[in-house]
């Protein structure tokens, strides 16, 4: 049975596309047949993050409007033959696709894949509604910021109203040092407010910036903490029990120095 999972957030810039690319790659590395779909029509990004931009011939709107068959529009990943991307159209807007067409499209993908991950646009309008209409499950990505959590709360309400069940949560870009100093919302604070199931915690990691710019998922990088967190989330999606990574910053050289210095003085 294929699972259609939409990744959404309400607020923009919290890491939906990065999460979609990394979870898709991680699931495919573990042997699943995965399609990732970019539902952000008019502002497509997923192809760039996955480094597949230059291979696009047809897109989602071409399929919906009958100019291309689904198989023609699906782009195979550079490394993983089991991973495919269905890119969004760049020259159209969200109204180019209807909810019925989205359901039809996801149902077609169900026959050939184990996982279909849909990268939702930000906001609560038509684009978001299109992204969740065909989904079996919804994952909400948030960062530990008050504004992002507020929007995530709104989205939980809308997902429940759309009868997609209670979504699960990924807290992205957590900075343990700031949390320890009480300057950042902790994961517990976020969970307490949203009251939904926690699927993963992804620490803030500079490796994400470089991997995104190179068009290569962070899960390939053995040393990336964020990459490991995404691999763990993929395992949890497969039903495995995986403990959460211990949240500790690797101290920088300067801090180690000051750390020793500080200890001597006390």
């Amino acid at each position, binding site marked *: 049975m294929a699972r259609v999972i939409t990744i959404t957030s309400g607020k923009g810039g919290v890491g939906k596309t990065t999460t979609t690319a990394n979870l898709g790659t991680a699931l495919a590395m573990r042997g699943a047949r995965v399609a990732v779909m970019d539902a952000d029509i008019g502002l497509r990004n997923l192809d760039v993050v996955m480094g597949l931009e230059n291979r696009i011939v047809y897109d989602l709107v071409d399929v919906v409007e009958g100019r291309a068959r689904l198989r023609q529009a699906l782009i195979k990943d550079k490394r993983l033959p089991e991973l495919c991307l269905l890119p969004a159209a760049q020259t159209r807007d969200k109204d180019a696709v209807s909810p019925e067409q989205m359901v039809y499209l996801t149902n077609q993908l169900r026959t050939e894949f184990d996982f279909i991950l849909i990268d939702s646009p930000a906001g609560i309008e038509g684009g978001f509604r299109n992204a969740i209409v065909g989904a079996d499950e919804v994952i909400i990505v948030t960062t530990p910021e008050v504004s992002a959590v507020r929007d995530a709360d709104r989205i939980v*309400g*809308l997902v429940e109203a759309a009868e997609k069940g209670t979504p699960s949560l990924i807290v992205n870009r957590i900075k343990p040092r700031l949390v320890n100093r009480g300057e950042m919302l902790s994961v517990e604070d976020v969970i307490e407010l949203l009251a939904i199931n926690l699927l993963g915690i992804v620490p803030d990691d500079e490796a994400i910036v470089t991997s995104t710019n190179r068009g290569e998922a962070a899960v390939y990088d053995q040393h990336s903490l964020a990459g490991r967190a995404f691999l763990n989330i993929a395992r949890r999606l497969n039903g495995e029990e995986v403990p959460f990574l211990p949240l500790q910053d690797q101290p920088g050289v300067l801090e180690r120095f000051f750390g020793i210095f500080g200890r001597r003085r006390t």
Partner: protein
Amino acid sequence: MSDLISIKGGRDGLRMRFDDTADWPALLVQLEQQLTQNQAFFNGARLTLELGERSLDEIQLSELLNLLQHHGVVADALSANAREARNAARAVGITARPLPRYADPPPGTPSLAPESEALLLTRTVRSGQVLRHSGHITLIGDLNPGGELIAGGSVIVWGRLRGFVHAGALGNAEVVICALELSPTQLRIADQIATTPPRSNGPHVPEVARIEQHQIVVESWENYKR
């Protein structure tokens, strides 16, 4: 609410009941008054119109809908016995229903105060969600920031109250707002408004807000009950 128009809340939303026989223009005048007086309660509300035995044509109904819309009220549905009124509703594009089997007595019938009807809910009220009820509201669960509870009577939150609450929104100042953790973005009781200063994240005690000498005061439940 008045002798010709009454408002009732139920699990399925608000219902506005009009007197069966009163002169229509006089009813509209009174409705306008009510909507203006209780703007805080009605603005943003969706409700069902209940006409009883009264008949309305399309022009009269449009007039009514315009008046409501002017005050930020949307009528989703209309229930009436008269076929003409139901046809008029369909013509202007709202759902028409025959009268419910257990119709409310027409306004003016002596009955319990409207606040005596309470709504009990077990859920989380999240950002962007609004619950509106003419009587009391008891919420078992959290009211998150960005969520709203608007009640004609008192509001009790068995959980964290972090959103917006308006109690006594139909003018009654003799109501209370209480919560296990009272950290609202804003509280209103009748026509008074209060914001709470940001507080430390220490342990919270149950608190009660009420009006004392035209001001909203908050005190711990332990003090209040003495």
